[in-house]
């Protein structure tokens, strides 16, 4: 059993490049759009990873529950769609500089938490490595082991997000910040459209 649980790390490590591809649209625009140093970017990625960790732990809990009860407990696509929609709108508003327009402390605080929300959404993103991990976790038929399995899966996939910390090197240039804002607006719209399609297709 310990070897099986550890395989979560290996699956994460082997499929992490595609995970980084799925996560980067949420992360890159945010990292580039403001002049931050490496330390500040580190905390943004940390917050993003916490969001992702919570999503993965929830998935571990659900997969373990399914394994134990053999009931089909599937998270409603509406919830995933709604989270995607809100994150897309927030990323869009952040990128057009809403926090500079509306200088209300409470609203600014909400937008500061975007990396956490983005991490949560990217953790809920259903991609092939995620389905593999989920299927594996169900087979344990034990909630605690399933959660630990997802914890290892999270660790394996997160390795590929570390290089994003160094994007702080280029965000000091005005062009890079403009690029971050432009891609943030486009990614925000893209996520909103995907969320709407999610509801339509559901």
């Amino acid at each position: 059993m310990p070897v099986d649980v550890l395989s979560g790390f290996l699956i994460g490590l082997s499929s992490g490049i595609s995970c980084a591809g799925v996560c980067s649209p949420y992360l890159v625009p945010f990292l580039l759009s403001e002049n931050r140093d490496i330390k500040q970017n580190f905390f943004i990625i940390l917050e993003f990873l916490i969001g992702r960790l919570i999503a993965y732990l929830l998935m571990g809990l659900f997969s373990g529950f399914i394994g134990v009860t053999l009931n089909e407990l599937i998270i409603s696509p509406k919830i995933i769609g709604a989270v995607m929609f809100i994150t897309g709108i927030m990323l869009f508003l952040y990128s057009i500089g809403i926090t500079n327009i509306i200088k209300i402390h409470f609203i600014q605080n909400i937008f500061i938490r975007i990396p956490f929300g983005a991490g949560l959404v990217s953790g809920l993103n259903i991609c092939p490595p995620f389905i593999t991990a989920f299927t594996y976790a169900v087979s344990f038929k034990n909630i605690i082991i399933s959660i630990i399995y997802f914890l290892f899966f999270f660790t394996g996939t997160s390795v590929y997000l570390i290089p994003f910390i160094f994007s702080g090197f280029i965000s000091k240039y005005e062009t890079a910040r403009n690029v971050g804002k432009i891609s943030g607006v486009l990614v925000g719209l893209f996520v909103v459209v995907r969320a709407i399609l999610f509801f339509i297709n559901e």
Partner: protein
Amino acid sequence: MNRNFDLKKSLIFSFLVFMFFSLLFILTEKRGNIYLAAKIFYSFFLSVLFLLILLKGKISLFRSVLFITTAVSFIIVYKVKLWGLTKNFFISPVKNSPEVPVCHIALASNFAITFFDQLKAALIYGWTQWGFYTIGVLYIFSTLAIGQAFCSWACFYGGIDEGFSKISPKQIIKFNNVPKIIRDFPVGFWIFLMLASVVLFEPVFCLWICPYKLTTAFLNRGGLFVYKMQILIFISVGIIFLIVLPLLLKKRTFCSFLCPFGGFISVAGRINPFLVYRDKSKCEKCRRCIEVCPNFAITDNYDVTSYCVKCGKCVDNCEKRAIFIGIKSEDEKIQNLGYIIYLFCVFLFAGAISSFFIPDAIVILLKLIIIPG
């Protein structure tokens, strides 16, 4: 810097260009005498253009002739192929495309998935099958050899909006400068397209935005409705960015504001040694260079940005000869040497790319004229 060469030197240099291409085509053309004859004629056409550039000291005018001819020839060649394969001349059929050329815009916007696909192919079939090597080497060679000049010399689509920008004799709407964030849009757009193509695992720009797909063929991911939507978007983007805006502004608006390859090369091209630069002591700040620049690449402070595609238009139009193209140096000898090296590099590269289209278009037109008669 001396841009005008005497007749003797000009003839020698243009003869070298003629000999280079003629020998290349004699050694490589295997499709028959008519194609070889067309390629020899094409080599002569190139050498005449090169001669005129050297003699007159004007780069952009004769570059435009080659550039626009390439775009027109590209359309002729691919439309004829489309007709031959599908009996449909204007647009590709609903059920998928017969042939889509290896396109630099597609490769830039889908860089991540191209890399991933090629890597998978290499892992399954072995490293010798890794096509990415070829594309990667071509990219590196192109960037090192000519950098951003690819967009004004070798892009086989670029002649379309350049052609429309030349129709009107005067700029109908005076619009020569844009805010930096708008000029940076192609880079942000390129980054977004790369990310989106990874998430959806499909070429987003080629499927949904690129108006140049009307010149060749395109993939259809759905039924008739999706197909009609694609055509509607391609036509709308094409009319706005390739026809109307270039006509009104006398600028290359698709290349300046939308092209993802433009975004990519403005970043990667910075490593290229050739530059357009200004002698501040000679410059009288007349704004002529800002007005004629087709790519909004010169700022109000007369700084030449990395969006400059080295077309030579500002160089040709500067009455005080304060703008240079080539290798930046205070020494006039190095300036002159840099200028001629630059011309050879861009001309040989553009000539090689255009050789895939212009000679074939000549043969197609000859067959159309002669065979029916």
